[in-house]
Structures are given as C-alpha cells and as structure tokens.
C-alpha cells in the first residue's frame, strides 16, 4: 500500500468506518511508515479537539423570551377565525360612512362660498377706491410708458397676461386670486 492510498483512508480508519480488509492494510502500512503515523496522530488530535468544543447555549433567559415568540408565530397564529359580521352591522357601518362623506362635502362647499363672497367683497371695495371695476394691478395703466424708440414697453394684452399669471401663482394671496377670477374667466 502506498502512502497516498493509506492517507486517503486515514479519515475512515480514524472514524472506524472502514471495511475490515482495508483497515488491516492501513494498519500494516502505518506500522512501517512514520510519516503516515504522524499524519494519523495529527488527525486524531484534531478530532479530539473538535469534539471538545464547548456547547453553545445562550441561557435560560433567552429561551424564556424566544420560546413564546416561536409559539406566537406557530401554534397561536392558528387561532380560530373571528366571528362573521352581521348584515345589519355592515349596513350601519356603510350608512355612517355615507353621512360622514356628505358632511365633509357640505363643509367644503361652505368654505368655498365664504371665500368667494369675501373675495368679491374685497373686489368691490378695491373698485370703489380706484373707481374702476378692474383689480388694482390692472387699473394702473402701463400703456403710457414708452421706451426710447417710442414703442410701448408693455402692451395692454401683455399687461392682462401678466395679471393672470400673477393671480395663478398666488402673489396677491387667496383673496386676491378670487378677485381676479371673474376677469380671468371673461378674458377681457
């Protein structure tokens, strides 16, 4: 038997998990080969040390915490299904939801009306001051301004466009925005 063959069987020999005929041949080789004997002893020592690795246990406190978690995810999660809800309860629940939706919609409409009313009141007050039904920033005419070449710096159309853009972007605030709505809608 060669050393290569013997060493390929050393593990099984150590584990006592080898055919009798092979075990005898390995034993005979080991008696004659000090290198393979040293290899065997090293393997035996390694096995002993590995088997002596201390057990790993996180302790009773860990188990008292984790075992209920395991039960909760397994046994206890198979609890019986909740009782079926009656038709009356479903109808009552849907009715309540409908009422809530209607109330919310009504409140939104009231707020919108109030905002529009306040806005038009503001517009009326501004119109009195400037003697013009148009919003303040449209009342001041810029068409009289001309540049060095006598062309108007801002045409009336450009002025109206600027007013619309400013209103949409919210510069005058919510009340100002609503005051120009009639003007925007009529596209004067």
């Amino acid at each position, binding site marked *: 038997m060669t050393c290569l063959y013997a060493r*390929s069987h050393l*593990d*099984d020999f150590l*584990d006592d*998990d080898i055919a009798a005929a092979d075990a005898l041949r390995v034993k005979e080789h080991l008696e004659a080969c000090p290198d393979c004997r040293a290899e065997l*002893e*090293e*393997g035996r*020592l*390694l*096995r002993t*040390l*590995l*088997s002596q*690795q*201390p*057990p*790993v*246990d*996180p*302790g009773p*406190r*860990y*188990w008292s915490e*984790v*075992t209920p*978690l*395991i*039960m909760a*995810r*397994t*046994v206890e999660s*198979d609890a019986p299904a909740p009782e079926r809800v009656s038709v009356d309860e479903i109808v009552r629940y849907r009715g309540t939801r409908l009422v809530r939706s209607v109330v919310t919609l009504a409140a939104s409409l009231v707020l919108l009306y109030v905002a529009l009313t306040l806005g038009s009141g503001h517009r009326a007050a501004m119109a009195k001051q400037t003697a013009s039904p148009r919003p303040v920033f449209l009342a001041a005419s810029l068409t009289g301004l001309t540049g060095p070449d006598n062309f108007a710096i801002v045409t009336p159309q450009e002025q109206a466009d600027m007013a619309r853009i400013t209103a949409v972007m919210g510069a005058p605030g919510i009340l100002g925005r609503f005051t120009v709505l009639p003007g925007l809608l009529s596209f004067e």
Partner: protein
Amino acid sequence: MSKTIPELVAGFVNGDQAAFAELVKLHRRKVYSLAFRLLGNHLDADEVVQETFVRVYRRHKELKDVANFPSFLFRIATNYAIDLLRKRKGHGAITDDTDALPGEIQMELARRVRTPSDSYESKVLMVEITRAIDRLPPRQRITAILHDVEGYTKPEIASILNCPEATVRSNLHIARNKLKKALHKRLNAKEQK
C-alpha cells in the same frame, strides 16, 4: 408518563400543539448550537432558531417518517443557515462582537468557554480552531461541525444535507485537511507536550 420523541413527533404531525411545544424545548439548544457555530454570531443564530421551528410547524405534512424528524429539523436549519451565510457574504460577515450581546447571554456564552484555570493555551487553541472552521466554505464547514463537533454519523449528515454519503465523506476529508493545515503548528506543539 413523559412521551418519547417518536410519540411526540407522531402527535405533532397529527396536529397536537402541545407535542410541538415539547419538541421545540427538546431540540432548541441543538439548533441554536449548530446555527451559532455555522454563522458565528448570536443574532443570526437567533434568527435561524425562530425561523427553523416556524418552518417545521408549517411544513409538518412533509414529514413522512417520524424517525426522520431530526434530519427533517436540521435540514431546515442548515438550509436556512446556508442562505443567511450567503447573504452575509455579499454584505460582509458579521463578526462575533460579544460585547454587543445582552449581558445575560454574554455571561452564559462565556461560561461555556474553558475557564482560565484550564490554561491560556487551551483557550487560544479553541479560538484558533473556531476561526479555522469559520474560514471553511459553507458545505465543508457544516459537514465538519455536524460530524466532528456535534457527533452526527455520515448517513445522518447525508440525510440532513440531502446529498450522497460519498459527498459527505469527500467534504469531511477536505475540511479536515484544511483544518490540519491551518492548525499544523498548534497541533504539533500540543503533540510534543
């Protein structure tokens, strides 16, 4: 009269929840020990323990033979542990920072290591063995741990890992050679004493 494990398993398969609770108590430490040795840290071992028993519970109908329960249990545990190992590999291994563990667990794990009175060398050797095992590829690591540390036979390991026995022998042989190479100096020093 307390039931045997086959009786508990038979009860569990038939839906006996008390039997399942008892099986958890009987096997939880082994599952934790295996997972801790494979993954090297408490957090991952904890995840493996919980997930293993949840999966065993949900898949109990797959268990055809009550005698195969240990293989069934540890197959689920090792497969999940290998998956975790592969995930961690991609994101950097979690080192075993025992300082980050709850105090009670640190104390308990430390208690299991040889005491200083045994010898400083023994402690160092044990740490080196652990590190050498950690450097093995997953399949070789699992085979060496199951056989040489936890004491399972080769047929049992083949059943757990769902592979031929020849593969188990081959992995064990390669793992032992690598460990001998890594620990050569330490083993020789110990032999000479």
